């Protein structure tokens, strides 16, 4: 009891001693009008829907349309994932978001030695067209916005599978809505280095953007993946600096093929993180809008205002969630999601609270969807555009993050662009430095994480109230058998013709668009690994990124 009294007395007088943002930007005790007296409203902020879009890209924001509510999903067989997608629709999502598994993402065979235990583990296997057929069964793809997360060199193959499914259902692909997450460069920082050589990665993303800008005007052919970058441990300004450097590399690639900036920039989209520092994240997203508008207007001379608009989806920060006292993660996700909404998000994924333990199960994913619905319908957060605009603190922080992000971008430009900064490992080193700074601040107690380095419960590792998602060896076996059966049943001559054609096309040079040849190979039921392996060989890389399997052709 004596100890408790001391504790309560100390607690009563305890001060807030966090004096810097999550990214290390110092915070003053108070912000006043003079902190923002260098701001000119119309030049620097503007009304929502007006350049430079600091306050949002639409004049009436959510009064015009809510953000799209989607939850990332992918596990087991395509049939398992399809079932969960149909459940999600039932629960009230307004868009779908599917992630592929690691063997698909790397473009390796389902029986590859390194693929053991990975088929259907952290995503859905999309090995062939058949899998996409099963995945989309019963889903009205003509009307639903479908986001496909594959962001590696296999992105065009996954997109082609989707295109064929639509065509076979008699749907005009020019009306398809959705996103292919084709930011191939970002995956380098998520441990996929050898599978995404920078020159091939750029070529592939360029092909997708070029193809979609011609034939799929409502589709987002690129979703610059700032989220995965942020998850590696970087700061908010770095998220913008590194992300925009990649975006600029793609723009230059496509411009190099003779397209005009306004032909494709209106369909650029971004996938950002919303981390736990509430105000910093809102400021970051406002700064991102202003920066992107300037990059497009000043640097690339875009004329169409649609090219200037920074459209973004948000994934709440998985890395901010902890395994200790996991139910508290619901609160973390709520705060992050609210920041996203107040920052004017276009599409939102909320993490499920069991994510530091396993893939989300049905129950936890439902809570994530309900979180979005409570923010949308109950809180009033969506009623007015940019409700925090004009706040002395928010505007100061927006300026500060923009300033820092420009510095990073300039450094990368001076090196010769994103590809150079990747090749000379500068980005990689910066990531490691920042991730370490953050971790040390937790280890030394400078930054508090509830349940981790404060308010720790002695009796830890308590049973969750829910059963975590379990990997199914049975699903893996079923999928592998399905692939084996497919390989016996498909028309071998047709397949070989398609692969031969793909090879011929791929040898025609970097700027020759490969999507039609990929579509043809997918239609012949070539597998994801067979297609990307063939392309890799034509560009001088091993068929298998791990150089274990050889081409069967």
């Amino acid at each position, binding site marked *: 009891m004596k100890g408790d009294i001391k504790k309560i007395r100390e607690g009563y007088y305890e001060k807030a001693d966090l004096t810097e943002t999550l990214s290390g930007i110092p915070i003053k005790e108070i912000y006043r009008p003079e902190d923002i007296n260098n701001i000119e409203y119309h030049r620097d902020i503007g009304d929502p829907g007006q350049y430079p879009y600091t306050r949002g890209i639409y004049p009436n924001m959510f009064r015009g349309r809510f953000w799209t509510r989607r939850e990332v999903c992918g596990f087991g067989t395509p049939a398992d994932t399809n079932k969960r997608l149909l459940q999600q629709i039932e629960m009230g999502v307004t868009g779908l978001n599917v992630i592929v598994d690691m063997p698909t993402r790397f473009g390796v065979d389902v029986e590859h030695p390194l693929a053991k*235990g990975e088929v259907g583990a952290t995503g859905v296997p999309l090995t062939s067209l058949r899998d996409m057929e099963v995945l989309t069964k019963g889903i009205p793809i003509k009307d639903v916005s479908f986001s496909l997360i594959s962001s590696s060199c296999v992105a065009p193959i996954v997109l082609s599978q989707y295109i064929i499914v639509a065509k076979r259902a008699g749907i005009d692909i020019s009306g398809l809505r959705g996103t292919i997450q084709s930011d191939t460069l970002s995956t380098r920082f998520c441990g996929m280095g050898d599978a995404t050589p920078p020159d091939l990665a750029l070529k592939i993303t360029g092909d997708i953007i070029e193809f979609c800008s011609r034939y799929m005007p409502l589709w987002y052919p690129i979703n610059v993946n700032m989220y995965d970058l942020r998850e590696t441990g970087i700061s908010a300004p770095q998220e913008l600096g590194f992300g925009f450097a990649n975006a600029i590399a793609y723009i230059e690639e496509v411009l190099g093929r003779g397209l005009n900036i306004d032909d494709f920039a209106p369909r650029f989209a971004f996938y950002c993180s919303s981390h736990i520092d509430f105000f910093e994240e809102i400021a970051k997203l406002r700064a991102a809008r202003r920066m992107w508008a300037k990059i497009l207007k000043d640097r690339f001379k875009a004329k169409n205002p649609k090219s200037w608009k920074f459209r973004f989806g948000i994934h709440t920060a998985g890395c901010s969630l902890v395994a200790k006292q996991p139910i508290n993660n619901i609160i973390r996700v709520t705060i992050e999601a609210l920041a996203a909404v107040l920052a004017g998000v276009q599409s939102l994924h909320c993490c499920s609270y069991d994510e530091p333990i396993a893939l989300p199960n049905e129950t936890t994913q439902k809570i994530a969807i309900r979180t979005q619905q409570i923010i949308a319908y109950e809180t009033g957060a969506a009623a007015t555009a940019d409700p925090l605009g004009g706040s002395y603190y928010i505007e100061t922080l927006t300026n500060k993050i923009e300033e820092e992000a420009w510095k990073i971008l300039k450094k990368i430009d001076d090196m010769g662009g994103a590809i150079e900064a990747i090749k000379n490992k500068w980005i990689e080193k910066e990531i490691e430095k920042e991730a370490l700074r953050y971790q040390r601040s937790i280890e030394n107690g400078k930054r508090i994480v509830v349940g981790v380095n404060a308010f720790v419960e002695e009796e830890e590792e308590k049973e969750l109230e829910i059963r975590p998602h379990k990997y199914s060896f049975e699903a893996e076996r079923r999928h592998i058998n399905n692939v084996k059966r497919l390989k016996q049943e498909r028309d071998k001559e047709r397949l070989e013709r398609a692969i031969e054609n793909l090879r011929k096309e791929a040898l025609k040079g970097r700027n020759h668009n490969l999507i039609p040849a990929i579509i043809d190979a997918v239609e012949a039921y070539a597998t994801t690994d067979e297609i990307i392996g063939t392309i890799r060989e034509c560009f001088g890389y091993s068929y298998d990124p791990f150089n274990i399997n050889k081409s069967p052709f």
Partner: protein
Amino acid sequence: MNTEKRIRILLAKVGLDGHDRGLKIISVLLRDEGFEVINLGPFQTAETIINVVEQEDVDVIGLSIHGEEYRIYVPRIIELMKEKGLNDRGFILGGVLPPEDIPELKRIGVDEIFISGTPIKEIKRKIIELVKEKGR
């Protein structure tokens, strides 16, 4: 620890999962704590790991886990350790793991499991105890 032989830890990730933030950070933090760390990086197999354990006279093997890969690789590593007479080495896991799987993993031969959020000082203490227990 300065006067004694430094404890040598091998850290790695197995299978295709490339989430290597934890692996990189824990390597640096353990070095800061005075351990000798060999970081093999991601995409390892049980065989590549055991080879290095033998060649480099490693005291403790540590796997960083983020997906389901441990279900395949952990039993295989334990099998190889038994086969090669490496029972005096420690075997630890860290990262994203369902708590309900922990008892079974310990039963088959994993010495310690650190779920995400475990402080480095606690990891250090348990590794030193473990190496002592193993008589290394």
